């Protein structure tokens, strides 16, 4: 790597522009052979990750604790997937953004809806998946007013006979998987101060790991560990503040020198600003049983105006490695120091072992909102590879020696200054929609967004006591054009290169699943559910569901021995919110993102359905 990073970033944008527009001329879904020179890591073994669940099941959000979103099931193949048919469907009664995924354990499927967070257990032993039990929690209606970007919920986790999920109003709840009765319920924060919970808990051993949302309201971000058996809080670690609340102690051994020092979560901010520090934890948490470490990203720093918070603003927009039992931090790395663009670092960090330069390296792979894909040593926090996976121009690269991005001054946002053509936009080259990893192909498959933005330096201002007048940021199609605002990218994380990419009209807001027969499934915001050859990107099958897809498909084996594929259909979320009836003329809607999606309502309307597919 060394300094190659900076050269790459510059030329990368040109390549994306050129190929993207070619693809647009040819029409959608033209697989793009790009930068294919990088050889795939010598994975190919197809071995599952340590601690993988039974092949038939999908008990955690990303199936395994490493969030590979890989299943070894292989009945549905590249040859027969063209025969895939709808097996059954289920309407949740909630027509909002369905960003999560169902779970399947012991012939039961578990579904969590967006607010009001209605939970259903569906009986897979019976035709059509009738309801075994359901649980409608008393989620505070006022919590809807606090959520920035639709009232989503990203699903549950299962372990030890319990289904654990988060309510929008900051409760983590464990239900008895057999009966649906509440086993325990713990309230972790308050909506009155702007905090909500939208993420899916991750269960690692006997610890339930959760975090909060709401950085746009200036709340303090935290992650917490809860005892799975009792529901007691084990620890809570904040993303800003003194080491004592960040849970940085003698075990903390970060790789880069800028993270060494006392109370950096205070000293990298103006006095007291860390108290409104943001750094919420609303993405997917992962866990590596080999090193016994959990990993999660932190959101943007609080207080929008970057000029008001000089400094790196630790530990916002970065990743923590922690001991799941104590919460003590082991290392940290910051993707975007002093974030000026709303580039949250919350996207998942996927533990894999990769062949790199003849060595097996234990790494994390992370596709950041800032447009760089990072391959990081997961024991130490050292950046091994950081290359753009989508168009970006705010930095020319990441220096692996220092771990710092090489920023482009003209793309920094400042108060009173109009900054144009910043890529990616605040919605990021990717948001929470997760990537998948196949141990067979050795490739990562990441959804992506190709939008750019103009930041207008403060025209209207908000004053106390009057209605909020809104954001002055304009988002629009990136180099890929209006017909190419999203891509599904196949990525070689050992070399930091694209292998192929599929271009979509709208941002790809659905995290794929990849199978033991090298078939990949994902959905589009305009409602197409698609199967691709995971090696070539060739489209094999597609089906139009009722409402746009912003959720993540899963696959499982039913009690009848057949392989099924399931996905939510329900447009919404940040970029999908416009299809829920927000006016494109209202600049406050969805943090200014609606301008990037004016045509979405012509393609889809709200819904809230589960679709399950199988071979005849």
């Amino acid at each position, binding site marked *: 790597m060394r300094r190659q990073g900076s050269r790459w970033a510059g030329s990368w944008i040109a390549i994306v522009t050129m190929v993207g527009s070619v693809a647009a001329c040819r029409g959608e879904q033209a697989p793009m052979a790009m930068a294919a020179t990088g050889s795939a890591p010598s994975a190919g073994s197809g071995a599952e990750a340590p601690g993988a669940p039974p092949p038939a099941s999908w008990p955690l959000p990303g199936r395994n604790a490493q969030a590979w979103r890989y299943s070894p099931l292989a009945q549905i193949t590249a040859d027969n997937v063209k025969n895939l048919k709808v097996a059954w469907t289920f309407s949740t009664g909630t027509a909002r953004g369905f960003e999560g995924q169902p779970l399947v354990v012991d012939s039961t499927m578990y579904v969590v809806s967006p607010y009001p967070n209605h939970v259903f257990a569906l009986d897979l032993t019976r035709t059509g998946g009738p309801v075994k039990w359901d649980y409608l929690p008393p989620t505070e*209606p*006022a919590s*809807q*007013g*606090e959520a*920035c970007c639709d009232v989503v919920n990203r699903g549950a986790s299962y372990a030890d006979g319990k289904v654990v999920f988060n309510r929008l109003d900051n409760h983590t709840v464990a239900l008895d998987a057999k009966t649906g009765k509440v086993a325990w319920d713990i309230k972790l924060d*308050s*909506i*009155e*101060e*702007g905090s909500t919970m939208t993420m899916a808990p991750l269960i690692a051993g006997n610890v339930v790991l959760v975090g909060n949302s*709401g*950085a*746009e*309201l*200036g*709340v303090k971000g935290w992650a917490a560990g809860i005892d799975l058996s009792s529901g007691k809080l084990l620890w809570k670690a904040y993303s800003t503040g003194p080491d004592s609340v960040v849970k940085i102690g003698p075990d903390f051994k970060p790789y880069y020198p800028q993270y060494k020092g006392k109370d950096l979560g205070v000293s990298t901010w*103006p*006095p*007291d*600003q860390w*108290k*409104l520090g*943001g750094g919420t934890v609303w993405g997917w948490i992962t866990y590596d049983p080999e090193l016994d470490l959990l990993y999660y990203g932190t*959101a*943007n*720093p*609080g*207080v*929008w*105006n970057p*000029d*008001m918070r*000089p400094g790196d603003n630790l530990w916002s927009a970065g990743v923590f490695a922690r001991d799941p039992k104590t919460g003590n931090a082991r290392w940290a790395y910051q993707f975007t120091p002093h974030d000026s663009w*709303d580039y949250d670092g919350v996207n998942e960090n996927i533990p894999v072992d990769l062949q790199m330069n003849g060595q097996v390296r234990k790494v994390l792979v992370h596709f950041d909102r800032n447009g760089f894909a990072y391959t990081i040593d997961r024991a130490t926090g050292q950046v091994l590879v950081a290359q753009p996976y989508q168009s970006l121009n705010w930095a020319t690269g990441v220096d692996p020696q220092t771990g710092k991005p090489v920023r482009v001054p003209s793309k920094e946002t400042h*108060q*009173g200054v109009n900054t144009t053509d910043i890529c990616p936009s*605040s919605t990021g080259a990717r948001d929470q929609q997760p990537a998948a990893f196949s141990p067979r192909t050795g490739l990562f498959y990441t959804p992506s967004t190709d939008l750019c933005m103009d930041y207008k330096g*403060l025209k*209207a*201002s*908000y*004053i*106390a*006591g*009057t*209605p*909020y*007048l*809104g*954001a*002055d940021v304009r988002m629009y199609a990136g180099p890929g054009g209006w017909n190419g605002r999203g891509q599904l990218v196949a990525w070689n994380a050992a070399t930091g290169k694209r292998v192929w990419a599929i271009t979509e009209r709208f941002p790809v807001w659905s995290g794929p699943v990849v199978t033991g027969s090298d078939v990949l499934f994902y959905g589009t915001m305009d409602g197409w559910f698609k199967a691709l050859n995971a090696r070539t990107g060739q489209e094999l099958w597609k089906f139009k569901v009722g409402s746009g897809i912003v959720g993540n498909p899963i696959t499982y084996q039913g009690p009848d021995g057949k392989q099924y594929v399931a996905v939510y259909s329900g447009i919404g979320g940040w970029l999908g919110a416009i299809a829920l009836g*927000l*006016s494109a*003329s*209202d*600049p*406050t809607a969805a*943090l*200014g993102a609606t301008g990037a999606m004016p045509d979405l309502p012509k393609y889809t309307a709200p819904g809230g359905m589960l679709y399950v597919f199988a071979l005849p």
Partner: protein
Amino acid sequence: MTAIVVRLAMLAGAAVVSAAATPNGAAALPAPRALRVCADPNNMPFSDSAGHGFENRIASLIARDLHERVQYTWWAQRRGFVRNTLGAQRCDVVIGIIAGDEQLATTKPYYRSTYVFVTRRSSGLRFASMDDPRLHHVRIGIHVIGDDYNSLPPGVALAGRGIVRNVVGYSIYGNYAKASPPSELIAAVAQGKVDVAIAWGPLAGYYAARSRVPLEVSPVGNAMAGHGIPFSYAIAMGVRKGDTTLLGVLQRELDRRRAAIRRILRDYRVPLGDEDGTGAQASIGSDRPRGAVAPHTASGAGGTTP
């Protein structure tokens, strides 16, 4: 106000709460037409669900003239307020909004106020200008907003002068379980947590007057003090674009009731400038000639508000 009331008021799905509930079985007389007002139930001194705010009083004044009752749709004034209330046709008028806001149609401004400095009288500190060099050294409290691509004028003006290390941000949203969350900033001055707050005049004037610790309120001198960001704003009523009939009715009322409205605003210690002023000075405490500014010493004996 109990937390329950507040939470009810923040109800997003079914936010319409009528202040004019009909008695049981009373169906004899046709209900008067309603002036349907979109308002925050926990936003003193502007409005609250008990009707104590000056916007409540102005709404009642106009509704009486029109022989209408006031029907409130309560919604916390955070992001999406206009979209979820006026925009969703749940109500028809916002009593106070920056004049000329493009999201809706606004009347001519009916008052103008300004950002002010708030200090403890005992401190002897007085400020009149953002360029006062002492602002580099004292502890300054301001309202801030989270990640929303936006800032409030004082933060912009201070950061533009390199004044950040001695600035304490208070969330403009605050803790909604407490009464009037943004008023925490004024309390911070009284409690000595900060030496000076730079706050929006109506909020500062009202809470400074009610403070047990005597506070001084003085306007931020030059209206464009912060890097092109105005410090004084004209406030109007807002209706949905195209609702010209209601806009005309409200404009006639505002013209006719100008004196009564000014009296209400003065009762609440709103620092007032000329509503049709072009951004010059705001005067405090009384209808002074345009441009005249005098520091106003808030009475420690409590306000004159109901």
